[in-house]
């Protein structure tokens, strides 16, 4: 874990290099700031505008977290139902895949009509964005439970519930966590999109305002924070995984 963080110096270096090139390019080619602001400008705006920005940030964080928790619960629940009832799986699973191809922006007005402008439609949007990777990952995990372990449990007299709680669920925790990692980063994107459905504050709102008043630097500040937020959420899940599925990591380290 700490090892992994330390390994991060190389990508960090590349990132720094990219920023320097960007800064130089903007300065040398004399690109106007409203077209592509140099990184230093973005940083300056991020610091100066903080007082105004942090409120937006806060509400996006709240929304992402709430949406992520609900979205991933829905995802996990869906996976469990699909797993335990094979008939439902066969009839619904292909449709779930199809559902991922409905452009969310098109659904937006319908969601507003049905659920108004409150929290509900936003949570639905984030859920739509979030649940799928978890469902897929968890289903894969359940299915990949080694046959030998299942066979042993059945021979030893485990019933369906014991089989699920004592074997299939713990076995698929690592898979579920990889699903969670993907969903976590998506949830930030989902929150920003959902804010376009009408919100009073949030990075999505901040971004539209910034772009409509030609503050490109602020648009980039928004992008910057979206990325940071995604990364933080990802790290959070990594941390949870670190403590919850110790055995898998230790096993991997052995190899």
């Amino acid at each position: 874990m700490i090892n992994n963080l330390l390994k991060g110096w190389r990508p960090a270096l590349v990132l720094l290099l990219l920023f320097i090139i960007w800064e130089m390019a903007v300065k040398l080619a004399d690109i106007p700031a409203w077209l592509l602001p140099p990184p230093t400008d973005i940083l300056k705006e991020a610091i100066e505008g903080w007082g105004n920005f942090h409120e937006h940030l806060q509400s996006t964080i709240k929304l992402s977290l709430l949406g992520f928790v609900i979205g991933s619960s829905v995802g996990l629940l869906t996976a469990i139902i699909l797993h335990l009832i094979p008939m439902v799986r066969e009839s619904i699973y292909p449709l779930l895949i199809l559902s991922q191809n409905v452009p969310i922006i098109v659904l937006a007005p319908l969601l507003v009509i049905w659920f108004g402008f409150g929290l509900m439609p936003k949570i639905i949007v984030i859920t739509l964005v979030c649940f799928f990777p978890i469902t897929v990952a968890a289903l894969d995990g359940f299915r990949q439970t080694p046959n030998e372990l299942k066979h042993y449990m059945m021979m030893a007299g485990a019933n369906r519930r014991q089989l699920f709680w004592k074997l299939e669920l713990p076995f698929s925790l690592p898979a579920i966590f990889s699903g969670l990692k993907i969903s976590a980063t998506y949830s930030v994107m989902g929150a920003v999109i959902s804010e376009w459905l009408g919100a009073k504050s949030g990075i999505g709102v901040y971004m539209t305002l910034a772009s409509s008043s030609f503050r490109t630097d602020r648009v980039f500040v928004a992008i910057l924070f979206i990325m940071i937020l995604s990364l933080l959420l990802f790290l959070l899940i990594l941390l949870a995984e670190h403590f919850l599925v110790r055995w898998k990591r230790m096993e991997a380290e052995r190899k």
Partner: protein
Amino acid sequence: MSLLSIENVSKRFGENEVIRGLSLDVKAGEFVSILGPSGSGKSTIFNLIGGLLTPDEGTIRLQKESIIGKRGSISYMPQTPSLLPWRTILHNVLLGQELQGNINREKAIEMIEKAGLKEYIHSYPHELSGGMKQRVAFIRALLSPQPIILLDEPFSALDEWTRLGMQKWLLDIWDSHRPTILFVTHNIEEALFLSDRIFVLSHRPSHVISELKVPFSRPRNEELLLENRFLESKRTIHFALKRSNRE
């Protein structure tokens, strides 16, 4: 009086007739082996006893009661250790009891210590060698409350050196606890070295072609394997199998 008795059992999977008219019995406290070529239906017999499959014909009785289709009435040790990687050794050992509902933690700790795994009691399976994992799996089976333990080729995945060590260890444990064991193997030496009685199976569709009382006294040790009388018994079984193949 037999603890487990299988009478005239037959089983087919579609076209594939695996077992035809098989009968055998195990008495309480006995160590019985089933010896048969690969694919002769040994694991299928265990699945029948364990209640995962139901026979097409015949009866299976444990302590006089039919256990056809009844799961959890026997204790089982599979070919691979099948330990749950997220449980410590102690919790793995307790699993068999847990599924049946009553847990005896002290006994488990005692048994683990006796098996020489004291320092590993809170370790995870991946930290153990193959032989150690099999020991844990055996203790798990031993601790389960059921009156008979089925062992399905538990050592065939181990390398020869470890396997011999495990066989000796199993003999030790068995000598001190005397559980009832039904053991499956395709290795003649192993069957001879471990058991009181051996049922030799034919090729598919399998039935018992010969029943053999093992003539060696207990306790047995490693040197037995290199003695001439051992080779003699081995030859007997070998030719019995060969004859049945030719039929």
